[in-house]
C-alpha cells in the first residue's frame, strides 16, 4: 500500500536506501494512516500481549488478532483519532493553542510481535529495521510498548533495549485482569519510575484506558527526546549486556509489582492437564477438529442449498424476466447474464455461510488460547514434514473447504511455512470432491462405494505427506527444524466483538478476492460453451460437443490416454472441475445431454451407463484402474479457482501458479501410474 506523503524535507538514506521505514515504505495490508503531519506512533511488544487488539481499538481497523503468538505477520497502519484534552505542551508563551496541543490524530503503526530488538525471525527483523536500523529522522515519533501485566518480565526486555535509544517510550499495560487473578498487583507509578517512562494501565479488549493513553502519548511528544538510560560500562560483551538488561528488568518488576502467581495451579493448568496430555490431548484435538468440520458442513449445508436454490430459482427467473421484458430474452445476453454472471456470483455466495462459520470457529479457538495447545499436541506429527504443529490446523480445515484453509495458513508466523502449507492444502480432499467420489463409487463399486470414498481420503492424506516430504527435501531443504519453544497464554473467554470483527474481516477478504476471479472464470467457461466451431449454429445456441469448449476438451483429452480416461466428456468434466468441483457432475451430465443425477441416488440411469461405457472404452477394457486413476487426478489437481484466488492473496501469484503446476504433475503422474500398474491386475 502507499504510505501517506510526508511534507517533511526529503532526506537521503546514505546507509541503506532500500530499508523500509515507518514514514516511507510500510507495506501493511490494513489501512492508511492519519494526515501527513500527524505524529507517527509505533505499537511494539512481545507476541501475544494484545498489541493488535489495541491497534484495532485505537484505529477502528481490523488487524488479525488472536490469543496466541505470531498473529501479526505484517505491518499495519491506521489513523488513531482522539479528542485533545487540555494543554500538554511545556510552552510558557502559548495558552494551549500551539500545534502540539491541537494534535488530534496520530498515524499508528502495528509492528509484528518481538520480544527484543535482536531478531530471530523475519517479523522481528522488520520490527528492528523500523525502530533501530532506519535513520533517526525516519523513525517513529514515539513507541508504545504493549506489556503483559501478568508476565511483566518477559515484556520489558524490549523496553530495556528501547530505553537505550532516544525513542520516546510509553508502556501500555494490558492483561491486568489476568494479573489480578494470579495475585499480581502492579503499581503503575512505581513501575514508571523504575522504567523511566510513562506507564498506562488499559484493557483494549473492553476499550478501557484508551483516552488516557492518547493523553500520555501527547505529553510524551511534547517533551524533548529522552536521554538513553545508563547501562554502566560501555564496552559490555553480548552476554554481560544481556545480564545487565535482565537485571534492570528484574529491578523494575520488583519495584512495580507485588505478589506472584508463579506457584499457583491455575484454571489454565487444570485444563492443560487434559488439553496437552500425551494421550487425551491428541484425542481432544481430533474431537475439536471434528466438531469444527461437522459444524461447518452440517450447519452450513442447508443454508448453502437454500442459497443455491435462491440463485438458480427466483434470482435467475427474475433476471430472465427483466431481460425478456426489454427484448433480450433468449439471446446470448440472457445466457451471459443468467448462466454466467448470476450463476457465478450465486455459486460464490453459496460459500458465504460455510466460510463465515469456519472463520467464527477459528476466531473462537484463536481468542480462547486453545490454538497454542493444538500446536503443541500436533507438533511431533507435523515435524515429519518440517512444519510446526500449528500447521495441522489449516490442513484439517482443508478437508471441509480449501479456501478458508488457505486463509488459515496465516496462523503460521514464518512466511516459508505459510507458502509450504498453502501448497499442501489443495491436496486435502474438500467436500466438493466428495460428491464426485460418491457418484463414481456408486456407478463402479456399488455396495463398496463407501470404502472407495474412504480410500480417497487416505489417498488425500498420503498426497499431503508425500508432497510435503518431497518439497521439504528439495525447495524447502534449507528451512531449519524449529525446536518447540512456545508460550502458552492463559485461557480466556472469547469476546463477541473480537470474534465478529476478526471473522468479518476474513470474510470480506475472501469475497473481495474470490468474487472477481470466479465471475471472470465462470463467464469464460460460459463464453467457450456459447461459441460454435461449426457452421449452422448460432452464438449461444450450439451443442457442447461443437462449441469451443467441446473442441478444447477434445484437444485436451488425449493427454489422459496413458491414464485410461481420454474420452472428451471425461476431460471436459476435469476442465470444469478446475473452476469448481461443485460443477463437475452437472457439466459432465450436460455433455451427455441427460439430466443431472440426484445426489446419492442408487439408480444413475443413462448417465451412469454412459460414464461406465466411456471408462470401458477409453481404458481398453480396464475400467476400474481407469476410474481409480481418474479419482486420483480429481483429488490431486487444482481444487477450484477460489482456492487459486486465496493462494494468490496469501502467498502471491508466483506460488499460486507453482501450486497449479505441482497439482497437475502429481495428479497426472499418479493417475498414469495407477492405471498402468492397475491394468496388469484388473
Amino acid at each position, binding site marked *: 500500500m502507499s504510505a501517506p506523503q510526508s511534507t517533511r524535507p526529503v532526506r537521503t538514506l546514505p546507509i541503506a536506501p532500500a530499508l523500509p521505514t515507518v514514514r516511507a515504505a510500510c507495506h501493511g495490508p490494513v489501512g492508511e494512516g492519519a494526515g501527513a503531519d500527524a505524529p507517527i506512533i509505533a505499537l511494539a511488544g*512481545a507476541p501475544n500481549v494484545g498489541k493488535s487488539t489495541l491497534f484495532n481499538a485505537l484505529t477502528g481497523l481490523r488487524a488479525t488478532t488472536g490469543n496466541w503468538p505470531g498473529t501479526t505477520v505484517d505491518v499495519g497502519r491506521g489513523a488513531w483519532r482522539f479528542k485533545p484534552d487540555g494543554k500538554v505542551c511545556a510552552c510558557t508563551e502559548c495558552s494551549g493553542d500551539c500545534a502540539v496541543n491541537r494534535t488530534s490524530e496520530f498515524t499508528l503503526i502495528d509492528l509484528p510481535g518481538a*520480544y*527484543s530488538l*535482536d531478531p*530471530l525471525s523475519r517479523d522481528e527483523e522488520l520490527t528492528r529495521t523500523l525502530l533501530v536500523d532506519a535513520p533517526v529522522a525516519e523513525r517513529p515519533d514515539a513507541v508504545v510498548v504493549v506489556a503483559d501485566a*501478568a*508476565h511483566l*518480565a*518477559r515484556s520489558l*526486555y524490549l523496553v530495556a533495549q528501547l530505553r537505550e535509544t532516544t525513542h520516546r517510550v510509553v508502556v501500555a499495560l494490558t492483561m491486568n485482569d489476568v494479573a489480578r487473578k*494470579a495475585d*499480581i498487583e502492579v503499581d503503575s507509578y512505581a513501575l514508571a519510575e523504575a522504567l523511566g517512562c510513562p506507564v498506562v494501565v488499559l484493557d483494549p479488549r473492553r476499550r478501557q484506558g484508551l483516552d488516557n493513553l492518547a493523553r500520555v502519548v501527547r505529553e510524551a511528544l511534547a517533551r524533548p527526546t529522552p536521554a538513553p538510560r545508563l547501562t554502566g560500562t560501555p564496552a559490555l560483551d553480548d552476554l554481560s549486556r*544481556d545480564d545487565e538488561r*535482565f537485571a534492570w528488568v528484574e529491578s523494575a518488576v520488583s519495584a512495580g509489582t507485588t505478589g*506472584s*502467581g*508463579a*506457584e499457583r495451579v491455575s484454571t*489454565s*493448568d487444570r485444563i*492443560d*492437564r487434559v488439553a*496437552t*496430555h*500425551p494421550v487425551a*490431548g*491428541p484425542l481432544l484435538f481430533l474431537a475439536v477438529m471434528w466438531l469444527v468440520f461437522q459444524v461447518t458442513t452440517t450447519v452450513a449445508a442447508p443454508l448453502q442449498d437454500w442459497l443455491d436454490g435462491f440463485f438458480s430459482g427466483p434470482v435467475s427467473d427474475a433476471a430472465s424476466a427483466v431481460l425478456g421484458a426489454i427484448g433480450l430474452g433468449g439471446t446470448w445476453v440472457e445466457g451471459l447474464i443468467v448462466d454466467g454472471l448470476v450463476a457465478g456470483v450465486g455459486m460464490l455466495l453459496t460459500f458465504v455461510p460455510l466460510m463465515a462459520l469456519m472463520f467464527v470457529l477459528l476466531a473462537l479457538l484463536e481468542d480462547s488460547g486453545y490454538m*497454542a495447545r493444538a500446536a*503443541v*499436541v500436533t*507438533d*511431533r506429527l507435523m515435524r515429519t514434514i518440517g512444519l510446526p504443529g500449528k500447521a495441522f490446523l489449516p490442513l484439517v480445515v482443508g478437508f471441509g473447504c480449501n479456501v478458508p484453509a488457505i486463509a488459515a495458513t496465516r496462523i503460521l508466523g514464518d512466511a516459508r511455512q505459510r507458502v509450504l502449507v498453502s501448497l499442501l492444502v489443495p491436496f486435502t480432499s474438500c467436500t466438493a470432491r466428495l460428491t464426485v467420489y460418491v457418484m463414481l463409487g456408486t456407478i463402479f463399486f456399488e455396495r463398496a462405494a463407501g470404502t472407495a470414498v474412504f480410500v480417497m481420503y487416505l489417498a488425500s492424506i498420503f498426497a499431503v505427506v508425500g508432497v510435503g516430504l518431497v518439497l521439504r527435501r528439495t525447495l524447502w531443504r534449507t528451512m531449519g527444524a524449529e*525446536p*518447540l*519453544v*512456545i*508460550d*502458552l497464554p*492463559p485461557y480466556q473467554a472469547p469476546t463477541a466483538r473480537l470474534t465478529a470483527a476478526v471473522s468479518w474481516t476474513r470474510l470480506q477478504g475472501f469475497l473481495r478476492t474470490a468474487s472477481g476471479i470466479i465471475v471472470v472464470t465462470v463467464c469464460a467457461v460460459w463464453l467457450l460453451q456459447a461459441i460454435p466451431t461449426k457452421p449452422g449454429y448460432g452464438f449461444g445456441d450450439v451443442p457442447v460437443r461443437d462449441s469451443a469448449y467441446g473442441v478444447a476438451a477434445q484437444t485436451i483429452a488425449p493427454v489422459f490416454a496413458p491414464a485410461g480416461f481420454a474420452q472428451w466428456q471425461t476431460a471436459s468434466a476435469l476442465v470444469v472441475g478446475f473452476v469448481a468441483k461443485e460443477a463437475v457432475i452437472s457439466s459432465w451430465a450436460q455433455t451427455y445431454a441427460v439430466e443431472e443425477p440426484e445426489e446419492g441416488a442408487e439408480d444413475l440411469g443413462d448417465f451412469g451407463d454412459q460414464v461406465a461405457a466411456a471408462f470401458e472404452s477409453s481404458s481398453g477394457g480396464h475400467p476400474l484402474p481407469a476410474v481409480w486413476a481418474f479419482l486420483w487426478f480429481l483429488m490431486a489437481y487444482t481444487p477450484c479457482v477460489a482456492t487459486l484466488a486465496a493462494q494468490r492473496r496469501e502467498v502471491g501469484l508466483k506460488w499460486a501458479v507453482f501450486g497449479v503446476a505441482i497439482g497437475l504433475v502429481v495428479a497426472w503422474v499418479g493417475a498414469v501410474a495407477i492405471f498402468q500398474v492397475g491394468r496388469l491386475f484388473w
Partner: protein
Amino acid sequence: MTPTTLDRAPLGAPLLLTATHPDANVARRLASLGLRRGVRVSLVQKLAGGGRILSVNGGRIAVDAGVLAHLMVEDVA
C-alpha cells in the same frame, strides 16, 4: 539433588536453571520467555515425545525434549 538436565527432573519440584541452551538463538528465545540462567522453574505437565510444560515467573512455556536435554537444573527445595 545433584545437577541434572531438565528432561530428567521430576514434575512439581522447584528447580534452579544453572545452564541454558548452547545454541545462541535458542538460548535467546528461551531468555525472551524468561528462561535463563539463574531463574527458578518447575515442570507442570508432561507432553508427548518427552516435552514438558514449564512454569517460569508465573508463565507457562511448552518445550520439547531436545531442548530440555540441554538445560541444566538443580533442586532448590
